[in-house]
């Protein structure tokens, strides 16, 4: 493969997988505090449509992104209220958020399907995704607040006993996750596609969830994993062009299979799962118990 082609492939991968990076880093922060939010796909779609519609109506890119971030915050805020205050089941609430988000985004975007817009340069966002991953890593491992986040994810009871507010920390993690998912969606509708189409994330939200596990909850690995997943899917798309007859579906399965394998490895050694997964993931916190 010539050098030019290689550069071209890398460029494609970077641009195509950036939504994954945004969504996954957001969900990673949420899960680090011990909360599993399955609503990633729904929040991405709502973020995508609100950004697009705002752009078409106002013409302002800044406003489009701001509205999109706000929508992510609202959706994840709803999730946070249900899960933290009303102590509802995290798995079911996250699923409800995704189903609701798919429906809501279709309704909001109904008159805007196929509307043409001027897209933005995606490389700004590729760079932004690197920066955010770096900042999240710095936050978790070099700051006291980041340490508190990790402590809450590890043991909400001990954190509470030491005087830290579990609910406040989790709220922050959830909202950050929501904003990142919205950003991922808005990147897709304004830079990557750029257009609005019903269900345009096409399951990327679920891949992002897999990615967080595949990366064993470490920010830097999100980048590595995203480019591996992205690379595999690009490879799959070009198979026919290169005359290879291997069924593309098996390539597309690779991220899911790889994630399952990682899951098995880290779960079977109980010590390793303690070091990787936030121990209080999905267990609701009952204050005063």
């Amino acid at each position: 493969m010539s050098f030019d082609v290689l550069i071209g492939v890398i460029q494609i991968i970077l641009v195509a997988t950036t939504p994954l990076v945004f969504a996954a880093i957001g969900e990673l922060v949420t899960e680090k505090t011990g909360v599993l939010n399955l609503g990633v796909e729904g929040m991405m779609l709502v973020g995508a449509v609100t950004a697009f519609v705002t752009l078409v109506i106002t013409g302002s890119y800044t406003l489009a992104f701001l509205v999109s971030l706000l929508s992510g915050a609202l959706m994840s805020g709803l999730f946070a209220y249900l899960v933290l205050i009303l102590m509802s089941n995290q798995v079911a609430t996250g699923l409800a958020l995704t189903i609701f988000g798919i429906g809501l985004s279709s309704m909001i975007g109904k008159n805007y399907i196929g509307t043409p817009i001027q897209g933005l340069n995606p490389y700004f966002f590729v760079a932004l995704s690197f920066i955010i991953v770096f900042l999240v890593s710095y936050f978790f491992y070099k700051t006291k607040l980041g340490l508190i986040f990790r402590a809450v994810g590890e043991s909400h009871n001990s954190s509470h006993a030491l005087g830290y507010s579990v609910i406040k920390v989790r709220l922050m993690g959830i909202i950050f996750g929501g904003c990142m998912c919205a950003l991922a969606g808005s990147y897709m509708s304004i830079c990557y596609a750029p257009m609005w189409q019903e269900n345009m994330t096409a399951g990327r939200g679920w891949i992002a969830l897999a990615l967080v596990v595949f990366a064993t909850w470490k920010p830097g690995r999100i980048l590595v994993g995203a480019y591996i997943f992205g690379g595999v899917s690009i490879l799959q798309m070009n198979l026919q062009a290169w005359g290879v007859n291997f069924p593309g579906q098996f390539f597309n399965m690779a991220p899911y299979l790889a994630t399952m394998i990682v899951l098995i490895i880290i779960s079977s050694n109980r010590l390793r799962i303690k070091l990787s997964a936030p121990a209080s993931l999905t267990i609701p916190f009952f204050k005063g118990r």
Partner: protein
Amino acid sequence: MISFIPELEARGNPSTTMNFLVPVIAVTLTILTGSVIFAMMGFDPLYALHTFFISPISTSYGISELLVKATPLALIAVGLAFCFKNNLYNIGAEGQLTMGAVFGGGIGLLFYDTSGFWILPLMIIGGAVGGALWGLIPAVLKVRFNTNEILTSLMLVYIAILILDYLVVGPWKDPQGYSFPKTRKFGDSGRMPLLFSGLRVHFGIIITLIGVFASWFIFSKTMLGYQLKVSGYSPIASRYAGFNQNYLIYTAFIFSGAFAGIAGLGEVSGPIGLLYRDISPNYGFTAIIVAFLGRLHPIGIIFASLVIALTYLGAEDAQLFMQIPAAVGFVFQGLVLFYLLGTELLVNFKIVFRKNL
């Protein structure tokens, strides 16, 4: 000033009244919210609600369509109850129904030019086996490696969908289908018989009712059901009683997967009669909503499946008559689940709003 944070006061015993009321409250709130949404979009709320909830079932064809949609939902949900009652989060029903369709449909394709009364039952068994095997994977991983079943069952959904995809455009493609991604039709013996001429409601509904009855029977009359209940309520008591926890995990997933697999087979051998790419409009996930709405109880699930099936029909009618995208059905489904989850704690807690100083 009243705070937004409710104070929760634990009840002595879970309230049975609330257990019945909570789904009713959730549905009522959903309808109210829906009317507000329609009003904001510029529609007359009563007209919109009528289009969405009443007109779809105002004809006998409509009622038959309702049953066609409710059939797989109820069956899958009843199967999911086996897992949920045991605190096993099986969110892979979509994958299990897909694999049921693959196994059962595969048998149908094998005998597409044969006839015999035994073909359909064999396909149904194939559906059960396919779904059960797919459901066993997260169970085995959980027992052997302590892997979290939420993520494993979820990953398997997308793997199953890709397997179906591969088969439908690859080795099982209809040789006379040009490039349309579908298999050839099953033979007449491989189709679910229609119950009434002119209506699409088919034998699958009988299977669903059998499944619902079987689930009720197992849980209320058998030792297996008892063990599952105890294990779900209190794993420590289950160990004290000497019940084998691993065996129960396998059993729960086998039932869950088998029911979903049969539902998947029902979907492809019923109205359509062949395998294709998108055999399920999210039924595996929606069935989770049905299971919750029905409070994991067979009768509740029957009612809940009708309600949720109505949201699918209503969405189609809303698209037809109000030019709203059919995805509005998802909005209602999401809302119902939100309200359900939000009000669920009324079963175990009393709400007291404290005045904030």
